[in-house]
């Protein structure tokens, strides 16, 4: 049996005055899946999250979240989703634990879950610290812990690692993979293509409100692998790029016979280079 569809967008468009922020967007997210919504700033990523979570009304189209139209989203849906945006605030004059406890009371979550999550995000030893005294990375981990406090079915992460140091970003990536493995669906918006390639099952490349590419990161990269080149490293540390032709095949055969071939890699494009290709930006 296939995985359950938790979220679907059907021909969503959003217009702000004369500007179209989203144009005919259709996607779906299933349980245990990480969907990446990728694009530069202003591409419409946050607008999409706001529409799906009922904070903004679309101009046309339908968004269905956990079986309910996002225009009629109610408390029972909010009890089953978690949202982390760059504007997710914390109560700065309350401690880390008090912040968690407040939302645990709202969402009727048992107290032992707070300690469990604080340990999981590495904030347990800071639980008595005022939230206003936390570093940016610690705040982001607190916001994430709070968002998953009630074990949501879908987690919305809007640029969760933006501006964080690599080790904190890595910890957040690790946590996202764990949550996915527990069956949580994650809707991730990012402009970090490397992050998307590493984490996402599917990605939608968004440019000026349009989805310009959709698929798994590997599929998309292979789709644009038109040059079919290979990079080889020889035992004398010499690197060579080979074309996909008979002459290269002969060279390879010789190197293998001579036992001088150290490694061989295909040179398919990265998501970043695909994005640049489809949006035409490399021409500028």
């Amino acid at each position: 049996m296939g995985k359950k569809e938790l979220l679907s967008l059907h021909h969503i468009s959003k217009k702000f005055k004369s500007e179209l922020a989203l144009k005919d967007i259709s996607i779906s997210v299933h349980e245990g899946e990480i969907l990446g919504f990728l694009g530069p700033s202003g591409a419409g990523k946050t607008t999409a999250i706001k529409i799906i979570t009922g904070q903004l009304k679309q101009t046309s189209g339908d968004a269905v979240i956990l079986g309910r139209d996002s225009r009629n989203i109610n408390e029972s849906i909010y009890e089953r989703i978690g949202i982390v945006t760059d504007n997710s605030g914390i109560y700065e004059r309350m401690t880390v634990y008090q912040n968690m406890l407040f939302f645990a009371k709202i969402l009727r979550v048992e107290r032992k879950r707070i300690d469990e999550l604080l340990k999981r995000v590495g904030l347990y030893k800071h639980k008595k610290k005022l939230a206003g005294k936390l570093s940016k990375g610690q705040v982001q981990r607190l916001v994430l812990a709070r968002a998953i406090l009630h074990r949501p079915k879908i987690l919305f992460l809007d640029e969760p690692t933006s501006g964080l140091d690599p080790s904190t970003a890595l910890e957040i990536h690790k946590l996202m993979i764990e949550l996915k493995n527990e069956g949580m669906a994650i809707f991730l918006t990012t402009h970090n293509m490397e992050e998307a390639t590493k984490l996402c099952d599917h990605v939608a490349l968004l440019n000026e409100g349009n989805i310009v590419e959709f698929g798994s990161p590997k599929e998309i990269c292979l789709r644009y692998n038109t040059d079919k080149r290979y990079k080889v490293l020889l035992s004398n540390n010499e690197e060579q790029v080979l074309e996909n032709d008979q002459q290269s095949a002969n060279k390879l055969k010789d190197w293998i016979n001579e036992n001088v071939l150290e490694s061989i890699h295909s040179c398919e494009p990265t998501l970043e280079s695909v994005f640049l290709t489809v949006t035409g930006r490399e021409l500028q």
Partner: protein
Amino acid sequence: MTLSLHKISAITEMKFKAIISNKNLIMMPIFSIAITVVYRFLYTSLLKDNSSADMMMGIVLNLGLMMNIVMTGMMVTSSALAEEKEKHTLRTLMTSSVNGLEFFLGSIIPPLIMIIIVNMILPFLSGISLEVINYPIYFLITTVASITSCVLGMVTGIYAKNQMSASTISSPITMIFVFIPTFASLNDGIARVSRFLYTGVVSEMITSYSNHQEAPLNALNMAVLFGQIIAAAILFIVVYKRNGYETD
């Protein structure tokens, strides 16, 4: 719209902590108490005999009550709401299964309790003869007036983007509701306007007590008091329906 008591109680507790830990907000009721005590001793030192003592102490009580009911009611409520927007906690809360009514109740209960406690302490601090005060009536009128101020504070809070703008928006409104009843005795025109303000009803009650009379529970006063709490609630609903708690 459903109401969950556990959510209202959680928000109430959080708002209490937020108000108590915010020096600007906690200063408001303290300021009302301080001004009452300072004016009491100032007026007492000016009194040559006791014949006009209750009248003078009535003025002191009136001043303290106006400050507490209007300034604390509006400023604390609107600033607390504005702070939630400024720190981006409001949106987090509203997308955590809290509905507008639960947030509204959780937000006005803490300042309201604070105001009511101070309202009940002020007669003791003002020096007015306590036997002239009919406490049930005093409690009823000051509490209804305090609720009206808190609701108006929520309305101004909706239009305020941050705590600074909450003060800017609330200031002219608080001045109207504080100064008109305060200066009603100086001018007939102001007195006529004051009769139609909920703070005017509070002021009239205190004037009656200071003259050793019962509070005037006439139809006009009751209509003004309860009419304005209903008007404030309707205004809040209209503004909330149009903007939510954020006007963006």
